[in-house]
């Protein structure tokens, strides 16, 4: 919907200061950047990662004492969806070599490689094949493919610097060394990357890159990669079976401590069933839909961190979950675009960030975390210069019309066609009116601890994609997540298949670890009716929910 009369009135304040701001910009008089020494204070005071009272130490499990977001601890300090005693593990509904949980980029890549390595594959997803954050990635995929100016060496440096130098070096090496190979693999499958007429791949810069190595397919790179992988998975129906609308709820182990499959819940028939597998790949993705600290998110409907819970209950360690990536500029109006990513390129092209009074309050090209913190400060009660939205949220203006004034009329339409058309549909011309933005929950930097073969501490359990931790350290760079899911998805598939070939399952199937976890919760004094994995978020109208007197909720699911 177009701007409300109230917002139109507030835009007048932006228009009033715009000519002077454009003039200053033209003269190169930038708003002063926050001094490097003051950055820690800004982050400590306003970045969501540092907000006091938003995290607590987890009381049970292999990471006991780890201080992370309440929302994640809530998920981990929760009871199973099943009473383990009621699941009959002697009745196996599906048996396979490799079980893949998750149908996004990592799961699909793993399925293809496992199949190519001779395994019978069962791929399960709680929504449709391809319903994943991979589909939504716009920007691109990094790989050092340009000889003479770039190499995995520089890609490695960039990844480590972006992650504050705490990334797992072996995982980073794998990421950057395998990157060109993955690009070749995708090209061979027919992914339509943007190319010059001679076949040279087009590349551009991303935040934190030292060389232009971001490859893209228009502005829907993730969708193009995902639909190609999905089509290829569907072309191998003999050896890759796909089950949709089934959600994994617990891993199954053997009494000798190997992973042996999972218990599933059908979202359509409400049945639970048992899948037995020689190897299991967890590729369940991220957790933006936990809405950490009530943030809106760029993530997919199913991004509820299910795999973290299942792996953790089985005794596998998590890491790097103490930092979460917030993108500084997500749309906060109109409502149907809430959480939608507004690319950094707008700020790169000169658009200021301004508050309700039309005043600039931050330099527009600060590092992501600093920029996000400054916007949050402006919207906070201490400063209270955020712009209220009709849904009761606050944002600040991203003054896109400046770009046409700085670089000539028509620039916004030409340089940002996707966003221009999108906002046009809402009745907003972003070359004439600013956008209302606020930081948005974007990426789960950490996850399950893995090695460079995607192995976990549990034999037979492999992990790949956003659910894994360590690759990006404390902060992921743009363009490295599409790369991560394909590189590590392939590796997980390959190693899961070889594990299935080499090892047969020995011992009895068991869910004893779930009972043990329940006992540990009780011992730690965690009294809760929370249930995890969440599977889907709950966006029910609370008033309707109150009237659903006779409806049983199990966690967020009815």
């Amino acid at each position, binding site marked *: 919907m177009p701007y409300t009369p109230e917002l139109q009135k507030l835009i007048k304040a932006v228009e009033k200061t715009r000519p002077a701001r454009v003039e200053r910009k033209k003269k190169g008089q930038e708003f002063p950047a926050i001094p490097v020494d003051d950055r820690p204070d800004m982050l400590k005071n306003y970045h969501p990662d540092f907000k006091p009272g938003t995290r607590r130490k987890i009381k049970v499990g292999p990471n006991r004492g780890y201080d992370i977001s309440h929302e994640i601890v809530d998920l981990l300090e929760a009871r199973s969806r099943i009473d383990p005693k009621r699941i009959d593990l002697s009745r196996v509904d599906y048996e396979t070599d490799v079980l893949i949980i998750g149908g996004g980029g990592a799961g699909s890549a793993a399925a293809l490689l496992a199949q190519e390595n001779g395994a019978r594959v069962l791929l399960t997803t709680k929504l449709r094949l391809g319903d994943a954050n991979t589909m939504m990635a716009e920007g691109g995929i990094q790989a050092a493919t340009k000889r003479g100016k770039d190499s995995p060496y520089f890609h490695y440096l960039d990844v480590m610097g972006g992650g504050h130098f705490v990334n797992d070096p072996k995982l980073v090496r794998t990421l950057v060394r395998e990157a060109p190979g993955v690009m070749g693999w995708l090209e061979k499958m027919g992914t339509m990357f943007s190319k010059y007429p001679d076949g040279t791949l087009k590349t551009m810069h991303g935040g934190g890159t030292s060389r232009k190595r971001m490859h893209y397919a228009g502005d829907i790179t993730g969708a193009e990669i995902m639909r190609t992988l999905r089509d290829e998975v569907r072309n191998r129906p003999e050896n890759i079976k796909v089950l949709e609308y089934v959600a994994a709820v617990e891993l199954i182990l053997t009494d000798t401590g190997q992973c042996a499959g999972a218990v599933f819940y059908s979202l359509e028939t409400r049945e639970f069933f048992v899948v037995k597998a020689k190897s299991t790949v967890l590729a369940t993705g991220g957790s933006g839909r936990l809405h950490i600290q009530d943030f809106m998110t760029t993530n997919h*409907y199913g991004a509820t961190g299910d795999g973290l819970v299942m792996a953790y209950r089985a005794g596998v360690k998590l890491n790097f979950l103490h930092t979460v990536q917030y993108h500084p500029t997500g749309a906060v109006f109109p409502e149907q675009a809430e959480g939608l990513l507004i690319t950094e390129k707008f700020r790169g092209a000169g658009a200021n960030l301004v508050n309700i009074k039309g005043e600039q309050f931050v330099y527009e090209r600060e590092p992501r975390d600093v920029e996000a913190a400054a916007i949050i400060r402006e919207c906070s009660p201490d400063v209270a210069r955020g712009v209220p939205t009709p849904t009761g949220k606050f944002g600040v203006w991203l003054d896109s019309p400046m770009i046409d004034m700085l670089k000539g009329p028509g620039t916004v339409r030409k340089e940002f066609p996707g966003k221009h058309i999108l906002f046009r549909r809402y009745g907003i011309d972003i070359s004439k009116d600013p956008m209302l933005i606020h930081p948005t929950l974007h990426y789960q930097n950490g996850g399950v601890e893995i090695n460079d073969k995607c192995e976990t501490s549990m034999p037979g359990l492999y992990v790949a994609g956003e659910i894994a931790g360590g690759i990006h350290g404390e902060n992921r760079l743009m363009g490295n997540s599409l790369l991560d899911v394909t590189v590590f998805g392939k590796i997980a598939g390959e190693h899961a298949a070889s594990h299935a070939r080499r090892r047969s399952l020995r011992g009895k199937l068991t869910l004893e670890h779930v009972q043990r976890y329940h006992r540990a919760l009780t011992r730690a004094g965690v009294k809760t009716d929370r249930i995890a994995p969440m599977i889907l978020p709950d966006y029910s109208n609370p008033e309707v929910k109150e009237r659903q007197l006779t409806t049983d909720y199990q966690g967020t699911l009815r």
Partner: protein
Amino acid sequence: MAAQKQKARATKVSKKKPEETRKLVPIFIMGQRYMVPGSLTIQKAMEYAGFQLVRGCGCRGGICGACGTVYRFPDSHRIEVGLACQTVVQPDMYLAQIPFFPANKAVYDIEKLSPTGSDVAKLYPEIFKCIGCNVCTKSCPMDIDVMEYVARAIRGDVAGVAELSFDCVMCGLCAARCPAEEAQYNFAILCRRLYGRHIAPRAKHLAERIREIEKGRFDRPLQNLMQTQHDKMVTLYKEREIEPDMADEDWTPGDARYV
């Protein structure tokens, strides 16, 4: 705590919502009347009305194609379409989601196909049944000229289909309404893959780079980096040369040791 928070969220929403967004409008979800805030998308309106979506909901951002929806107004015979996550409700709209359509999907080995009309026609012979009614184009929530790419497929113009269908989210609304029972979005992805695999020239620099890596060209520099102490790493990072924004394709760095 979770319950408390939920309550807090609920109060926040109902307290702070200014008058005009709380204005409720009637919509008809599969024939049943619900009063919903007029500012919501179809998707959020369904949730507001009390539905918990399982099918018909995906990325919630207009790219995954899970939430294709058809709707109509009382005094019109016209069927309109939209993605539920992108389309704002309008008073009196009668709507239903089409979360799945059993369209024909051919199984093939992309390596063994040629990028010709005849290979596409062999896998999807129904393309020739198109009667030119243009309902597919009218049914596309992404404003793709579907009928035009069907015509290109009939003419054997694989590259044309690839180009015209590039923005397709594969929601299936075109197939759902096609009187010729075509699976437009499925042969469109076949054409895009044929284009990417067999028509677009291969990236030579990529093939060469992959060979270099396989030969171990970067193994030692990477190994050295992995063993570099933290402070030295920070220095290397700070001092690394940045390719200028405006640089051309043939820009080369001053230090060419590791490229």
